[in-house]
């Protein structure tokens, strides 16, 4: 059974300490910044596609452990998925975090079930779902624009950005991991 007391377990603490896909993307086609006005936390998500599938994804921001671990596990979970499949996972995660998902019926949640207990903590639900809302916003940020068109225009949801020092092309090192650099994700 989901229990909020199991929230701070090994897997979440590990992702908080060593977040996966943390950093900036040099050539993001989609990105968005999400804010939690309750606590001032913010997180940015950037991604790019290779044909139909999410090829590169990164997140960065200042947040609590629940939010950071959720973002870290989210980026791992959606990498390689099509947008449609990733959106299904977004909906399932939101349903789980608000206690509306039956974990016994078929779903894609998998290891993300470690967040099920958050539904017992109404004030922390927002922490867990912020990355997922941000991902959803990122998908919609250029819903009708192609990568090429996007490159020449201001992204809808992004803060004004400069390309951060050291941001690299996705095809090379993929990510610049720097937990101390809270600059928003830049796009070329």
């Amino acid at each position, binding site marked *: 059974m989901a229990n*909020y*007391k199991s*929230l*701070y377990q090994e897997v979440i*603490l590990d992702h*908080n300490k060593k977040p996966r896909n943390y950093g900036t993307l040099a050539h993001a086609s989609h990105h968005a910044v999400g804010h939690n006005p*309750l*606590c*001032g*936390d913010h997180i940015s998500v950037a991604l790019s596609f290779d044909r139909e599938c999410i090829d590169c994804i990164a997140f960065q921001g*200042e*947040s*609590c*452990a*629940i939010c950071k671990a959720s973002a870290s596990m989210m980026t791992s979970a959606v990498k390689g998925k099509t947008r449609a499949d990733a959106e299904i996972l977004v909906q399932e995660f939101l349903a789980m975090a608000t206690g509306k998902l039956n974990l016994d019926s078929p779903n894609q949640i998998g290891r993300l079930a470690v967040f099920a207990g958050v539904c017992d*903590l109404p*004030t*922390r639900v927002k*922490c867990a779902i912020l990355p997922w809302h941000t991902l959803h916003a990122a998908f919609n940020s250029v819903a009708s624009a192609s990568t090429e068109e996007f490159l020449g225009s201001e992204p809808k949801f992004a803060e004004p950005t400069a390309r951060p020092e050291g941001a690299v092309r996705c095809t090379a090192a993929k990510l610049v991991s720097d937990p101390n650099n809270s600059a928003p994700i830049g796009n070329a």
Partner: protein
Amino acid sequence: MNAVQTVGYPPSAYAFDVERIRADFPILKLQIDGKPLVYLDNAASSQMPQPVIARLVRYQTSEHANIHRAVHYLSETATAEYDAARRKLQRFINAPEEREVIFTSGTTDAINLVMHGYGRKFIKTGDEIILTTLEHHSNIVPWQMLAEETGAKIRVVPINDAGEVLIDEYEHLFNERTKLVGVTHVSNALGSINPVKQMIAFAHARGVPVPVLVDGAQAAPHLQVDVQDLDCDFYVFSGHKLCGPTGIGVLYGKAALLEKMQPFKGGGDMILSVSFEKTTYNTIPYKFEAGTPPIAAAIGLGAAVDYLSAIGMEVIATHEHALLSYATAQMMEMPGVRIIGTAKNKASVLSFTVDGVHPHDIGTLLNQEGIAVRTGHHCAQPVMQRFKVPATSRASFAFYNTLAEVDALIAGIRSVQKVFA
């Protein structure tokens, strides 16, 4: 040997039976997931003792009707009790006159009343309002709204690294355009006690004395407030931080100022006569109490200040200071824990951060131990920006807290550090 000595605690220099006090608060007997409640969120809202609960029950059971209206028994009883509550609050803050005590829905409502009643009438384009960095959003936003509407300007008094207002800077902000000062008596985020008496004296020593509004939301529960000694022009506070009900607060204002002010809300009870040609407003305090007031809450607040006064505000302050000193000393010894706000004069608030742990995670993990603290920006974002932290955790003490509860807090923080080690 009949004295019980608890090892490790500083010797008590005052007679205060905290267990007897705790017995008055039914909610303190609660268990949270099998752990005894350790309630350290008193700066957000305090708990209610049985005599206040009983007073509310008695009012609703045998005294309730609308006030200032009918000639029947219940209306007369309710009116008499409501007016008696006003006199209790008058004595509690040593206001010279009963009519200078206006019931509002709380501190925020009281500040908004002054903004609309005084600010919109007397503050014009180019005029200046002085506020401090320590203000709660409720003593910032109404004045920003006024500034936006009138073209007035807000000047902000900076604070030092300890969280103390810089008095020299405060004095330098004054000029001939200064029309009002808004200052908190005690900072809700840091616990700093401001030298408001000195600040008021300076504002009044100008060629044209500048009126001062003191936000007493965090001071009234912890300090003996004497508005005549302070010589403040307005003093505002809330009932629910004073062991009273929510939905009630007080605006004290000097009669001469209140009489000059325009009404805030229009409606019944605040008028002497109404025709479609002309309405004549009632006298103070009624001019500012439109509609049916929160009668039960006012009477409950009256009972709450009776309860606090019976214990004695000085006794309360002494006990709370012992709790704060004990907690501060322990926290200073903890590696990775930083106290935010180290003013020389502090009341009941201990704000802190833990290296590598977000305040929300601290709050959730402490809650698992039954410990209630506040985490976040405490509606004081300028203070957070000054200390370059997005948020803090805040333990805030009341007179019913114990040294053992401080120990529980310290142990709780240690176990949070272990989880995140």
